């Protein structure tokens, strides 16, 4: 090697070492990033919540379940940019806790979930695999973009009553699916209601330009019509490439007496909100609203304190540091059994925990030792008046053409890097036809929600 060659080689080595130092800084801080995620993946987490007792998971504290396993399964979306596995891993954590504390009448719950990449053929195949190969007797804890749409007919044919937390309209509009959340349409309804209550005389509603937006747009349109408030709807391609222009467009459309309501994933909503801040637009409208995805501490931290009290976020689930018994147990289970819950405390893990609780109550209600597909799904269908402080009102399944048991929400707002409750539980407007239908179902059978 000549002198020049050696010089270049030395330069490459020096640069490589420099790069390694920089990347090692990144690697070591990745751990702290995970820690941050663990403590702030979802709604507000204030200091020192009450310590929970994990022996409350089961009926025989400290006794491991050793009987024949009861097999449950789920299908979950996991692909670049979309990881919904926290719900299933939290359900698994809760089932492990139940199994360590007596199980279901001595029977442990064996849980299997598969991940999918929004491929209908793959999802349909996994559904058959769960039933035919894995012999599961219940479908619980799934969270998928399109699973409900693909599989609901299959579940209906088998008599399976799925407990899921999905995005597709079929999760909330078919007889064999019931979720702990309400999905983007009704959450957008709630955000619009909050924006109007804050004084908006016109709404500019913007959402991502993806399939299914027409279904979502119909909700806010119906709500604003009932409130005699004009609405202008927009769709923007994601990922957003010019948030500044979009923010200006929305503020111009809303006007000084209006409100802007967003239905985007957190990173996209953040782009628009931040652009509005930097353009001096945040105070040029009466109110800003956002559907549930904005209800994370990551958004609150990224926005800074300038949006404290200003951004109204519809929250389908309680804040994660709520003091109630289910919230306390949820945190304890996550702490002791939730090593695989990468997002930590947050909406997804809250939903997974709640879904697991619903099915455990159903399984505990079965008399004798018959944990067949038929008996388990009959028990799931019969769950009603499940009181949990993670939801505004009792959860239920029941026999109905559609299920939206979560139809009463909180409004949260950023406060010093956390999301906190701004408005206590309020009903999603029954101007949205599906909500009206659900309220009629609840009125017809008050026992679903604890009435008589």
């Amino acid at each position, binding site marked *: 090697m000549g002198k020049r060659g050696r010089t270049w080689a030395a330069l490459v080595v020096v640069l490589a070492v420099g790069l390694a130092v920089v990347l090692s800084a990144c690697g070591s801080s990745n751990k702290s990033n995970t820690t941050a995620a663990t403590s702030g993946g979802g709604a507000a987490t204030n200091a020192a919540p009450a310590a929970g007792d994990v022996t409350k998971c089961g009926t025989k504290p400290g006794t491991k379940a050793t009987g024949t396993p009861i097999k449950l399964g789920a299908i979950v979306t996991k692909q670049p940019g979309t990881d919904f596995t926290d719900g299933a891993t939290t359900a698994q954590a809760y089932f492990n806790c139940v199994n360590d504390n007596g199980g279901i009448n001595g029977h442990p719950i064996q849980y299997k979930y598969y991940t999918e990449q929004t491929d209908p053929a793959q999802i349909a195949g996994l559904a058959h695999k769960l039933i035919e190969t894995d012999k599961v007797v219940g479908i619980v804890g799934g969270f998928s973009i399109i699973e409900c749409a693909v599989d609901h007919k299959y579940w209906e044919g088998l008599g399976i009553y799925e407990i899921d937390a999905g995005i597709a309209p079929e999760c909330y509009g078919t007889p064999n699916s019931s979720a702990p959340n309400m999905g983007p349409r009704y959450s957008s309804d709630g955000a619009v209601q909050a924006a109007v209550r804050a004084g908006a005389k016109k709404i500019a509603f913007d959402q991502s330009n993806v399939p299914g937006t027409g279904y979502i747009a119909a909700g806010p349109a119906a709500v604003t019509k009932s409130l005699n408030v004009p609405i202008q709807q927009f769709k923007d391609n994601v990922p957003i490439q010019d948030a500044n222009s979009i923010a200006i467009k929305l503020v111009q459309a809303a006007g000084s007496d209006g409100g802007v309501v967003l239905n985007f994933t957190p990173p996209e909503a953040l782009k628009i909100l931040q652009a509005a801040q930097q353009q001096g637009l945040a105070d040029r409208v009466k109110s800003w609203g956002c559907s549930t995805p904005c209800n994370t501490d*990551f958004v609150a931290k990224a926005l800074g304190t300038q949006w404290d009290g200003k951004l109204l976020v519809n929250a389908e689930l309680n804040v994660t540091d709520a003091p109630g018994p289910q919230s306390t147990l949820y945190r304890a289970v996550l702490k002791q059994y939730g090593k695989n819950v990468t997002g930590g405390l947050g909406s997804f893990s809250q939903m997974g925990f709640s879904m697991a609780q619903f099915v455990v109550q159903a399984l505990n209600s079965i008399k004798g030792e018959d944990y067949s597909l038929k008996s388990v799904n009959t028990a799931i269908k019969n769950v009603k008046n499940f009181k949990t402080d993670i939801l505004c009102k009792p959860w239920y399944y029941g026999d109905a053409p559609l299920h939206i048991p979560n139809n009463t929400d909180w409004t949260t707002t950023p406060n010093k890097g956390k999301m906190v409750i701004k408005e206590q539980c309020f009903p999603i407007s029954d101007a949205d036809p599906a909500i009206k239908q659900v309220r009629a179902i609840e009125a017809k059978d008050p026992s679903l929600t604890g009435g008589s």
Partner: protein
Amino acid sequence: MPSFEDFKPFIVTGLALGGVYALQGVGIVVLYRATGVLNLAFGAVGAFGALLAWQLINHNGWAQGPAFVVCILFGGVVTLLYGLLFGPPLAARDPLVKAVATLGLALILLGAMSWIWSDKARSMVLPSSNHGFEVSNVLVNYTQVIAFGFAVVITVTTGLFLRFTNLGTAMRALANDREITATLGVPVRRVEAFAWLGSGLLAGAAGLLLSNLVGLDAATLTFLVISSLAATLIARLRSIYVTFIAAIVVGMVNALITPILSISQYRDMTPFVLATVALLVLSGRKNQALTGRAG
């Protein structure tokens, strides 16, 4: 149709975004002219640098200034390393092969970003975004001013550098004929290394500005380079001045379409439409010239 008053703020956002597209475009053209490599990883390098700066500020307690410097240097170092390692073995290959190789780098960086930082919402606010001034009732912040001003400065400086310095002359010679230039005693690898380094530093700077103007999101910043590529195609990967003008036009048209609701949702097509129209026009002129010459 919106009034002129409605359009005014979009002129500002269009100029700012066009400025950063120009910054990227100049970096891409200079590298292409010196090495024959169309660097498709330009956006990914900037995105990684910006996320690294965010990490250093928010999790390692760094001050903003040094973290921003690391972002820019990261762009330079990664791009230079790539050029040193893969430039020589790919030097004789087809330009398409060289471009696809950089796509590999982009995908590796994108994968690494997804692995390290997940898809959680995060933001980068440059201090200059918190201050600004009003022009005709439109708020202009200093990041927007810097984005446009920096693009002008870099374009002019690079143009002068290429024209009046030995290194710049060597780069232009390389662009014309690599073999003859090497025969004349020009240190080809050193010249190319300088081009890789300079281009990488611009990628880092552009990534930093875009993380504020557009958002700190790995995928967005990685693929935003498409708008800049459109500008470089309009300039036929030759003139940095035409690249600058084309980038500003892309940014402006993209922004000004926003309030026109009937076509607003198609505005992401702007770079492709402008590039296609420009290439068709240029191609038509070339054919006309050839036909004329033949006649």
